């Protein structure tokens, strides 16, 4: 069997290209951003619905007091504080610094769980049931929307933390941590409008 020479041809040799990349280089980043875009759209429409419903009645909130600020504000503070450990996770994931990543992730898990705990007090503090009237419906669904994200990202973070303490640590994991941090930034970001609409808007409108 004579191995016939094909004509010499130009090739691009990619064997030396990196395979652990971060930010908008990685496919994962595009996935995360796509998700964020979709969720953001949900939120935008929900907020639109909130103000649409507001125009349908004279009194807002109708016949009841606006929600207590205590728990909501507490949660806002906590969530904003989480910016710091989140930044730590992101930065050290980029560097591949396992110790710092573990610390950061543990803190994030703690913050996430506490935030959920506080959230459990937030719902009663709205002072209205979802099936009382359109106002109740709107605020419950808004808060519920953010809570869903809190829960999912919490679970996500916990699983990731567990992985970082096993022997499954590798470049890919650091990429996951990095994107998980990006997603947490998104959860923080959307909390601001949700907080303003749920807690502040009823006081102004």
């Amino acid at each position: 069997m004579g191995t016939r020479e094909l004509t010499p041809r130009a090739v691009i040799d990619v064997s030396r290209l990196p395979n652990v990349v971060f930010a908008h280089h990685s496919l994962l980043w595009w996935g995360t951003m796509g998700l964020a875009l979709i969720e953001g759209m949900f939120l935008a429409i929900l907020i639109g619905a909130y103000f649409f419903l507001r125009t349908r009645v004279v009194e807002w909130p109708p016949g009841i007091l606006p929600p207590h600020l205590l728990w909501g504000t507490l949660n806002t503070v906590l969530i904003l504080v989480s910016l710091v450990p989140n930044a730590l996770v992101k930065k050290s994931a980029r560097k591949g610094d396992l110790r710092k990543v573990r610390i950061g992730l543990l803190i994030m898990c703690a913050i996430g769980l506490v935030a959920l705990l506080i959230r459990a007090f937030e719902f009663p503090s709205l002072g209205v049931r979802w099936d009382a009237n359109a106002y109740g419906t709107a605020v419950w669904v808004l808060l519920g929307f953010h809570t869903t994200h809190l829960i999912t990202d919490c679970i996500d973070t916990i699983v990731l933390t567990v992985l970082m303490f096993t022997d499954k640590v590798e470049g890919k994991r650091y990429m996951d941590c990095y994107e998980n941090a990006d997603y947490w930034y998104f959860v923080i970001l959307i909390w601001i409008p949700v907080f303003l609409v749920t807690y502040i808007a009823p006081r102004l409108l």
Partner: protein
Amino acid sequence: MSTIDRTINEQEAGELKTKLHDLWREPPGFIGWFAHVHHTSIGKRFFVTAFIFFLLAGILAALMRLQLSRSESHLISPDLYDQIFTTHGTAMMFLFAVPMMFKAFSTYLVPLSVGARNIAFPRLNAFSYYIYLFGGILLFGALLLNTGPDTGWFSYVPLSGPQFSPGKRVDIWAQMITFTELSALGVAIEVITTVFKLRAPGMSLNRLPLFVWSELVVAFMVMFAMPAVMLSSTLLILDRLIGTHFFNPAEGGDPLLYQHVFWFFGHPDVYIIFLPGTGIISAVLAAFSRRRVIGYMAVVLSVVSTGFLSFGVWVHHMFATGLPALGMSFFSAATLMVVVPTAIQFFLWIATLWTGKLVIRTPMLWALGFLFVFLIGGLTGVMLASIPLDLQVHDTYFVVAHFHYVLIGGAVFPMFAGLYFWWPKITGRMLSETIGKWHFWLFFFGFNLTFFPMHMLGLRGMTRRVYTYPPESGWQYLNQLAGFGAVLMVFGILAFLVNAWRSWKGGAPAGDNPWGASGLEWGTSSPPPPYNFLFPPTVNGREALWDAAPDQPVVTGFHNDSREVLATKAIDADPEHISEMPGPSYWPFLAAVAVGGLLIGSMFTPWAVVWGAIPVTAALVGWFWPNKNEVERRRSREIWEPEN
């Protein structure tokens, strides 16, 4: 990235073939079927499934024509008729049009046309398929259970609300929406990532094939539009099941809110269905005029601007609600504006035909048929943009005629053009030209015979969604004409099935590039091997194969023991990094089953959301849990990108 010259001899190529084949092939057997993740096999499933739903919904349409062919006919009870037309509309929109034109075509063809070895997030792709399949089964299963939705494909409140729609029919509709749109959103993310990160070196954005451009724009539109419909159906089901008050006027809700949210999705959806068609038409026209489409930039810009404008026109579905005149005339103007980019594309296509060397084959026939049919739909659309004219024909058969001209013209004709065009690539065999021509002419005449008379019916006052009409109305003859046309369409479809069957059983082998077309997908064998390209290609111009240099470089240097693909820079597509694609897995299927259980359970008790979340979480964890050996292998050869 520098290119070097080296020799590849046949033996090396042969070894590489076997290596890659073992590496990329899907697990065999029935059980293995549930682990497939390659975009070609998932893409084929999307094609087949969407086409089956097309046939089923078509049968429902035939039943309606049968019922309407006689006045005061008692063939079908109003109750059943309501279920039939609702299921027909819902299935055609959510289970056929979007899945076929967006999910099927983009899943199968986008990675091939950008020269990638697989789609980005292949497991998500498999998940998207199963969740869509379950949604479809839910809808048609419900119809057989006499639980078919019966409030129209838009399910306006209060008719679809808890007070006027008892039972589970509307809940099933709402959850079906959640299923299918979840799937569409998944595919959108995959397509966007694939297009931006997995293009062949040299395929900078301004060299992206027009077909890929339109699928990309559609992917973005899906991201902005589908959340709206998922939300409207979710708010509806919340009102129905846990007593929220979004649409209850007595407690500060408003039925118009539903219409706004729904049509904010509903109108862009028409373009989500139609834009992939324009991409297919551009590809087919180029191939069969033997020249590239005139005005690449103009076409791209008009597709993009159509995408944007389509979000500013939804209120033209609500002219009759008596909203303030000023606002309405704004939307009227916006609607007219959408016509402009489409007109631009139309003129450019005709100019391409005018300057090309036409070869009339079946795909070309369908493309020309599209030009004719869609033109009529577009022109009646111009009429509907006018508030006074719309107030007369809104919700009549005139509108039925209009949107069937737009949707069948804008989706079904391009679909067949695309199927006849890419069938050789997908199956490796040619379809019969003769039967193809029969198919076209039967369908073409049948279609016009069915839907043109409906314009007249509308003008004579026949409203939509009526299960019968009085004899003295004089609508019977036109309806019978439409019924006759429907028969012709059925024969056309049968011809296609015969054609497909014969080609499958032993059509002429296609060869790599039977049409001498220019897309990268034609650069590999037909059907494509499980790894798509033996050597991932590079690109030298807009028409990849036509503009290729005599020795166009190829990509080498992968570790051929893991599913590695080359990721390139988002804009100019220079080689950037190596990304590893996940292999076959059962988890996407299991996750889809878990999600399905949650969604269906939640129709019966809100608690299903809580206990249903447990299996879903378990499935997802299993999905992402890394495999020990793979971790070892990857760790052994990590190359971190330098920090900048």
